[in-house]
């Protein structure tokens, strides 16, 4: 089966999730109550919205991730060819990894990997 199977899988997922949620909507008994619509925070009334600024630490890790993820994408074509190219591929990857390692070391020394 070719890449058309992906369309089939998307339709399957949509039908499964949609069918289940629709069936539950039809079958389940509903009742209206103002308390039901409140956010669940262990019985304590909610103070303010949760759509606020959050810890910048997550953002720092996302930034470093971006750099390393792009590196990972570069590694895939190299990995498929490495065996046939031979020693040249090894030298290339050593240089590549060295530069990356310096990047990681820089982030470490700058304190970007420390959780605040």
């Amino acid at each position, binding site marked *: *089966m*070719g*890449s*058309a*199977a*992906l369309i*089939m*899988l*998307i339709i*399957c*997922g*949509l*039908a*499964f*999730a*949609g069918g*289940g*949620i629709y*069936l*539950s909507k039809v*079958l*389940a*008994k509903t009742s209206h109550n103002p308390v039901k*619509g*409140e*956010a*669940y*925070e*262990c019985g304590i009334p*909610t103070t303010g*919205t*949760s*759509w606020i600024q*959050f*810890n910048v*630490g*997550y953002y720092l*890790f*996302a930034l*470093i*991730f971006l750099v390393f*993820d792009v590196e*990972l994408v570069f*590694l*895939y074509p190299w*990995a*498929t060819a*490495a*065996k046939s190219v*031979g020693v040249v*591929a*090894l030298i290339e*990857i*050593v240089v590549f*990894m060295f530069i990356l*390692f310096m990047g*990681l070391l820089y982030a*470490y020394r700058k304190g970007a*990997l420390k*959780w605040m």
Partner: protein
Amino acid sequence: MITLSEIAHNIHVKLSGAITNETLLSITEMAIVGIILLGSLVMLSFFLGYMERKVAAFMQIRLGPNRVGPKGSLQIVADTVKLLFKEGLTPNASDKFLFNTAPYIMVITTMLVIAPIAYSSGFQIWDTSIGVLYVSSVSSVSVIGILMAGWSSNNKYSLLGAMRCGAQIVSYELSIGLSLIAIVVLTGSLRMSDIVMSQADGWWIFKGHIPVLIAFVIFIIASTAEINRAPFDLAEAESELTAGFHTEYSGMKFAMFLLAEYINLFIVCAMGATLFLGGWMPLHFGADNAFNHAMDYIPGFVWFFGKTFFLIFVIMWFRWTFPRLRIDQLLNLEWKYLLPISMINILLVTIIAIFGWHF
């Protein structure tokens, strides 16, 4: 001996005899595959739910579910029926569109990742030439579903859970990718069937010396984190965040998250079994001998599912063995230990592959 690919081929021959139109034929086949796939995925998630509870009970010296059905095997079915009759609530303050779309994204992503997994010889939904890359890229889309669910709920617990989950999934994706690349370097192909075929004379975990063993251990640790299971279940740490990113979900929408979680567990273990433990390849040692012939009599899908469920058992075992990590410990483990180790490990694997030092 009848194999799964022969059954599939026979069905194809029968159908092409009955239906002459090319498009109609492929649509019919798609529909059959889709229905079988959905049925087996539901059965699989039922079984994994049952297995999870039984393994937990076994670890804690208690019985586990034992009332509904023989040995409690219908407990999960009863739970699903209960969830079906529950009212699906949407909080007033939530972002309703994102809140209702998130379960769909989770389910569709998991369905898409199923495509390139090789169950048996020639029995695969989509044998693509970029199999490994496809799995690692599509599976990371699920983090969007989790972030959507957490953000749109407008609940502090959900937001905290989603943020932790985002940081965790993107971090551990790097180690997972690097350990997958270790096998790609050895086989020189991203195609799943090629990777399985390269293990005909022994699985990579035996053939590849210590670097592949290190890659396997890193893969198991990182994939446990990737699917948010204990000891890395910070995103839904029930003692701190009630249920994390799906606190506000109820009824069938919650069931969709649960289903996606179980199928993801299966996918990750299937990937581990395919890349490191030989997929549907029987256990072979050396060249032509009696042991290899005896092993050939066990069908391929039995090997595949045996290895996959062994890895699933190991991951369930982790849950009752290790205490949960803190978020700073979690990120330390990835960025200061696993990532440098797997980067150096790639170099070792490359040396082994290029100089042909593997068996």
